[in-house]
């Protein structure tokens, strides 16, 4: 009896619930406030630090005019681009999405992102940005995304440790040779273990950054021909292997796990004297080791004159193909990448921004403490040395083939010559197959 009565109730409940879900999604899409055009903006900035900053930038834009209303949707990092792709395929994409700068050309080629040339013809904003960033957004000469933020790799070093080792704390290492000499002096050995390690190149970055640093050349030349099996790369890996032998796998692994744990990074307590990372690593020093006396420098050169080349990435704001309000989206992107918004982002998040003027303003901004300014200025200065590595449109997944070879070399399973030769061959094969 009882059950008989309950069953229909249960179904009614189910219907109501499913109705609710349908209503909700339908509602959020078609919300239209008056005569304003509502555009949907997707970002992965949901953290308690970043979210208020981007929300403020959006609110400023909404208040600055009365034609467009931007709705910011936070989509988690792991989902955002697959969801965007699905939304493009369903012909109902958001209007502005933050996406990876290094694959912008690929998305242009695949027709996922909108060609922005028609907007740029009217108002060319390309000179707002660092040239290297702008070039990364181009596919066959047209831009498919507008640079938002970026990063680079710099050397952090512990000044107290420098003094203890009898080194000049205002004179960071300038070449790979000096880096080695300094590290020797900074090392403090205690039996089989180390109380302090001078430097190890593969904490913070991978060997590809050092290969880039060695000769300023990516794994592909201008024509998309793979150039990984080179003299410079061989020498770089030999140099990396020297470091590897110097400290041994056990020490390296145990330090690595401390670095991965973030708070326990040995750079904070002086157990690691020099460390390469992005300028934003400074915010961790600020949080976890506020009293640390440190300096920042550009990456050393392989040899005098070879250049302090560093590596960077970043994100662009793009309009997905099929957006219903591209004109309005473009207006918002202009606001997003203009000096005011970019400077606000830079100061509040301590993040490198793509807009040159905004970056320079931020380094002088009165809200930024002096210590922050030093690091930020270095980040700006280092942009000159920073190269991006946009994925080649014919072999976007080439690192799948390169990484295992580099792993094998570092693990001693393959010689440097053999590993680079194999990597070169498989890249050539990949390019050939996809053409």
């Amino acid at each position, binding site marked *: 009896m009882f059950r008989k009565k309950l069953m229909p109730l249960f179904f009614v409940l189910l219907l109501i619930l499913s109705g609710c879900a349908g209503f909700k999604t339908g509602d959020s899409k078609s919300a239209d406030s008056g005569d304003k055009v509502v555009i949907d903006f997707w970002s992965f900035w949901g953290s308690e630090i970043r979210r208020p900053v981007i929300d403020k930038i959006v609110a400023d834009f909404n208040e600055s005019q009365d034609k467009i209303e931007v709705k910011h949707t936070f989509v988690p990092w792991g989902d955002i681009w697959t969801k965007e792709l699905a939304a493009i395929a369903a012909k109902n994409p958001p209007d502005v999405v933050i996406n990876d700068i290094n694959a912008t050309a690929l998305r242009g*080629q695949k*027709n996922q992102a909108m060609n922005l040339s028609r907007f740029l013809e009217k108002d060319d904003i390309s000179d707002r940005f660092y040239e290297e960033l702008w070039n990364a957004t181009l596919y066959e000469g047209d831009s498919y995304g507008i640079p938002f933020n970026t990063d680079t790799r710099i050397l952090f070093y512990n000044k107290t440790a420098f003094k203890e080792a009898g080194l000049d704390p205002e004179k960071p290492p300038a070449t790979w040779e000096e880096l080695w000499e300094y590290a020797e002096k900074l090392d403090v050995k205690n039996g089989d273990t180390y109380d302090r390690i001078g430097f190890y190149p593969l904490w913070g970055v991978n060997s590809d950054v050092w290969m880039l640093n060695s000769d300023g050349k990516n794994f592909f030349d201008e024509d998309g021909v793979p150039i990984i099996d080179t003299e410079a790369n061989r020498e770089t890996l030999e140099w990396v292997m020297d470091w590897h032998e110097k400290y041994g796998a056990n020490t390296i*692994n145990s330090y690595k796990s*401390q670095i991965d744990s973030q708070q326990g990074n040995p750079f904070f307590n002086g157990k690691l004297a020099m460390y390469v990372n992005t300028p934003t690593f400074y915010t961790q020093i600020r949080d976890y080791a506020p009293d640390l006396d440190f300096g920042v420098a550009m990456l050393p050169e392989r040899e005098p004159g070879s250049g302090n080349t560093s590596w960077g990435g970043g994100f662009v704001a793009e309009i997905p193909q099929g957006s219903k309000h591209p004109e309005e989206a473009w207006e918002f992107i202009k606001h997003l990448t203009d000096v005011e918004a970019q400077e606000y982002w830079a100061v509040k998040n301590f993040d490198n921004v793509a807009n040159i003027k905004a970056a320079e303003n931020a380094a002088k901004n009165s809200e930024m403490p002096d210590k922050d300014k030093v690091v930020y200025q270095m980040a700006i200065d280092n942009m000159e040395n920073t190269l991006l590595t946009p994925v080649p449109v014919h072999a976007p*997944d080439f690192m*799948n083939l390169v*990484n295992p070879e580099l*792993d094998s070399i570092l693990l001693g399973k393959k010689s440097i010559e053999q590993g680079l030769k194999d990597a070169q061959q498989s890249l050539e094969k990949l390019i050939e197959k996809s053409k």
Partner: protein
Amino acid sequence: MRKKLNYKRMEGLQGYVFILPWIVGFIAFTAGPLIFSFAASFTNYNITSQMDFIGFKNYENLFTADNLFWTSLYNTLYYVLFSIPLTTAGAIFLSALLNQDVPGIRFFRTIYYLPAVLSGVGVYLLWMQLLDPGTGLVNTALGWFGIPGPNWLFDPDWTKPALIFMKMWSVGGGMLLYLASMQGVSKSLYEAAKIDGASSWQQFRFITIPMITPVIFFDIVTSLIGGFQIFQEAYVMSNGEGGPVNSMLFYNLYMWKKAFESFDMGYAMAMSWILFIIVFLITIINLKLAPRWVHYEGEER
């Protein structure tokens, strides 16, 4: 007569009405995409800009020109081959232990079942810490016995064993099924065996095991299918990269990378059909072999 027919029809109709949500769901969300993916596996489909028929080129490239395809297939087979027998045996062993009548058994059952409740990314992150070569609990514990632990997730020879090891931790899920089925075995069988002087091992081997073969069969079939689809573990624990020397590049991870990193959707669809055929064949073989070793109660042999 007429009334009876109507009643039957009514009943049939009601049946369909009740399973309607499933039918609609199946046609819209399973069968449709299935047919689409089969058709698109013969094209260079990339979702947004192209879908040209290219015949068997995807399949041809997979078998002849793609080393990573073979790597990923090898990794997946390795994982299935070791993890399925180990987790099945582990679950049976554990449930045999938890089937004893000792005080506090409910407590132990709960404890061993807990890992099965905690699943997903949180567990993988936890294990990444446990398996840390320098500071992880696993190597620390091994160190107490003077065993120098391997580098687990950093050593290509140990990444897959590490994953299998992690899977062993959560055998509790299968254990529950076995435990239920073991409790269903009639006590009289054991009593009769005892009178005949059978040892506990003999009782286990000749009464318990045969009586739970239907559950073993079910477990093996489903975990084989699940094993071939391993993705999350590798995706999370290698940061989506596939681990050192591609040792954690499992089939589905490689497929995902092709689909969503290179946008080579047609290629990925071809891959998914090859996996489908492999799993399909293995399941057929399983079903064919089943009558040889699976006993159903009251069935003649």
